[in-house]
């Protein structure tokens, strides 16, 4: 009888443990997916702004505003989803190109994030094409410098 109860306990314990693990998996996977969704939204918004820079699309204040609003929304959604928490690297099953250096001692991810926030604000304050074109590179550089340090090559 004792052994049967023991068996039951072990079985139950295993199920609970397993559930716990799969919840951890799900949490980290959701965080990574939220991060990737943020990047996808940023990329799309960037595309519209770059088209103006390259002269493929005319300067349009409404497009600029919509793109910056989309980035702000993506930023907020990622914050909500804890997309940038170190916990996202624990037990994840989906592939991520984020380097662990993001969360390492002495990482300057915070400063790099702030550069992006600031560049968005500066760009949002521009009112004409010349101002936009002068302010835009700082936004692109914010994407670039973070990816250079913190994203590993794909594949």
């Amino acid at each position: 009888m004792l052994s049967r109860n023991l068996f039951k306990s072990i079985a139950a314990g295993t199920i609970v443990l397993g559930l716990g693990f799969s919840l951890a998996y799900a949490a980290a996977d959701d965080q990574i997916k939220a991060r990737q969704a943020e990047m996808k939204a940023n990329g799309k918004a960037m595309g519209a702004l770059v088209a103006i820079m390259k002269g493929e699309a005319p300067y349009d204040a409404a497009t600029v505003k919509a793109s910056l609003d989309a980035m702000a929304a993506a930023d907020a959604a990622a914050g909500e989803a804890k997309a940038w928490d170190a916990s996202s690297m624990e037990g994840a099953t989906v592939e991520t190109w984020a380097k662990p250096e993001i969360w390492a001692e002495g990482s300057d991810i915070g400063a790099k994030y702030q550069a992006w926030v600031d560049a968005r604000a500066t760009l949002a304050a521009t009112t004409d094409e010349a101002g936009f074109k002068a302010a835009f590179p700082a936004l692109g550089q914010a994407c670039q410098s973070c990816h250079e340090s913190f994203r590993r090559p794909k594949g």
Partner: protein
Amino acid sequence: MLGFTAFWLVSAPRPLPASAIPAHAGNIANGEILYTAGGCRNCHKSNAEQAGLDPDLPSGGFPLKTPIGVLYPPNLTPDAETGIGNWSDLDFVNAVQRGISKSGQHLIPAFPYTSYAAMPVEDVLDIKAYLMSLPPVSSPSREAGIPIAFLLRRGLGLWKFLGLDTAPWQPDSSQTATWNRGSYLVNGPGHCGECHTPRNLIMARDGSRFMMGGPHPEGQGKVPSLHGLVETGRYKDQKDLVLALQNGEVFGYENMSSGGMGQVQANMAKLPQADVEAIAEYLISLK
């Protein structure tokens, strides 16, 4: 014993003779372009632990992590004590094109002399002329953090004997002058194939898979193939690739920043417009 003797003979450094150095007045402007295309400063970065160094000068000593250990690329400024101030033209050409140090040792091929060997000697002398025009910086070299470095260096001689291609770059007369300029910059000073061409069993670039991409040398991820850049939709056309090389991810061109490409792209941005166009013309011709 016979085997050892054979190894010792085959692995001996084979420097170029003094007669290989032509009489040539160094062209500093050309040297600067080739220095930029070659990304020399990306590895010969200044030692972050030594205060007061100009980070734009290639005074060396910054750790370069490689699969075999940490290297500290040396000082390329014309300082007589710690840099190349006392190097003869022959010393410099032997280092850059044959991977042999001033003291006669084999250099670890993290230094891409395997590509630089394809350059005309005059171009290498122009790079030296440019380096000699820089302000001298006193920054002593640092020993590589590599176990059994002595034997490894000697073993490199064997590797060079088998895998170092010293054939000079050849133009293709069926192509335009700009295509040839691009081909030269990519395959000579630019040494793009050191990462974009995968390596064979003896770790030499595998010519049969030229620029086809492969595992990233830092261990994670892949280096993309440079074939079909337009056909696979990565770039619209030559103009688009020029913009990508000049602006990188600042203009939203993905994959121009990760895995070390960011430094390469920053160098491309400093090249003359005509050279970037030539590089793009050549690259998109790789089908």
